[in-house]
């Protein structure tokens, strides 16, 4: 009996050795959320490609550090790993939104270094296939006529990115009574879309990647995509801008690294990330997951993020999410 257990364990050891040998130099990618979400996807996908295209010698180890909507990982990196050159952390528009709304307990974007974004998930507003709402105008007018008649569903809490998209569009349409807008935040975009197809909510607000399958199956119809131009592959969906509502909202996906690393190390990460962005594997991954190409890597990315944060902060204040 013991011998058999030992043999099986030995098999495990052999299998495991490959992962763990020389783990000291291996890159660690922190996904500041539980497995299964967007940050986890970023870490696992980028980590996988980094290894496949030979940018790192060891497979990237993904650590899930859920807490405070990314705040726990942020403070951990700032306080305890500030000079670790083998550490990358997944980031997205959600990181910027939370920094803008001061949801990380007073921490600011300049306490880390944002390396870059290598893809973006365009914001969308969708309705069930049989909905009477045919265009963005229908939706805005319906809310104007009776705000109680439409419930929006999204994958973020009230005041989060999905909610802001709706409020921005309504504001662009001249509707200012933000408090009367009915919004429920669910545990993710897929949940929100299920509730919308089920008829419990009328409009779903989310990211393109969340609705691709449902668009193809014909269960939902997109009212608008919140990009500057129509998205390649989804040319049938009109932008909000061409319908007269000047709103652009994309959920970029990228990385940050600790503040204290050397400029060379930072540049190394920027180069590696750029190589991932240029790889076939990443293009495939983007196509499969409904991401639009969106590459901003290196020195000026930090400024761009700061701009995004400032804009989000202003918007949140205007809308009343923060005082």
């Amino acid at each position, binding site marked *: 009996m013991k011998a058999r257990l030992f043999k099986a*364990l030995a098999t*495990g*050891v052999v*299998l*495991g*050795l490959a*992962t*763990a040998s020389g*783990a000291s130099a291996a890159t*660690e990618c922190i996904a500041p959320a539980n497995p299964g979400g967007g940050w986890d996807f970023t870490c696992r996908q980028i980590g996988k490609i980094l290894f496949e295209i030979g940018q790192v010698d060891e497979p990237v*180890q993904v*650590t899930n550090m859920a807490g405070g909507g990314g705040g726990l990982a942020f403070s951990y990196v700032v306080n305890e790993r500030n000079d670790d050159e083998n550490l990358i952390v997944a980031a997205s528009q959600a990181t910027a939104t939370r920094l803008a709304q001061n949801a990380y307990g007073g921490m600011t974007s300049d306490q880390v270094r944002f390396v870059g974004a290598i893809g973006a998930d365009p914001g969308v507003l969708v309705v069930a296939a049989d909905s009477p709402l045919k265009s963005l105008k229908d939706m805005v007018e319906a809310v104007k006529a009776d705000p109680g008649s439409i419930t929006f569903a999204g994958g973020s809490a*009230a*005041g989060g990115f999905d909610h802001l998209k709706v409020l921005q569009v309504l504001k662009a349409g001249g509707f200012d009574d*933000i*408090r*009367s*807008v*009915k*919004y429920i935040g669910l545990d993710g975009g897929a949940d929100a879309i299920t509730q919308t197809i089920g008829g419990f909510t009328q409009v779903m607000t989310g990211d393109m990647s969340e609705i691709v399958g449902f668009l193809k199956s014909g269960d939902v119809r997109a009212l608008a995509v919140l990009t500057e131009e129509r998205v390649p592959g989804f040319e049938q969906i009109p932008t909000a801008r061409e319908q007269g509502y000047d709103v652009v909202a994309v959920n970029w996906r990228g990385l940050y690294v600790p503040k204290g690393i050397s400029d060379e190390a930072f540049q190394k990460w920027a180069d590696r990330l750029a190589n991932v962005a240029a790889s076939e594997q990443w293009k495939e991954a983007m196509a499969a997951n409904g991401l639009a190409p969106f590459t901003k890597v290196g020195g000026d990315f930090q400024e761009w993020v700061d701009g995004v944060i400032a804009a989000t902060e202003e918007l949140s204040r205007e809308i*009343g*999410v923060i005082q």
Partner: protein
Amino acid sequence: MRTDRIFGLAVVLGALAYIASAFQLQTSFLSDPVGSRTFPIIVGSVAAVCGLVMVVSPDPEPDWPHGRTWARLGIAVLVLVGYAYALRPWGFVLPTALAAGIISYQINPRPMAAALTGIGLSVGLYLLFKYALGLGLMALPRDFPG
């Protein structure tokens, strides 16, 4: 009898504090008829009622341990708390050997066996977690000489 009465009272006080802090919660700026407070207040009220029931009709006194056992339990709690703090800065092997050894000694006071248990478990589990399961554990402190 006494235990249930005291505990019931503690529950009532705790529940009241919980309800009080629920009233401090910021309400939402958006349409949300139920709000952040309602559910915690309901839960706190249920707990308070249950606490009152325990005060009014307590169960028979549980069979509590005596002096020396309390001391051993206290030591065990302290060891576990210390272990929680030590795990990251000191690495896995050393704190585990210590903590496992002490816990083992508390269950069965034979120093040799406890020491062997501690060392065996710390090395064995380290190998299991590190190599069979691939968890990112550190054996020794980050800046350990050598």
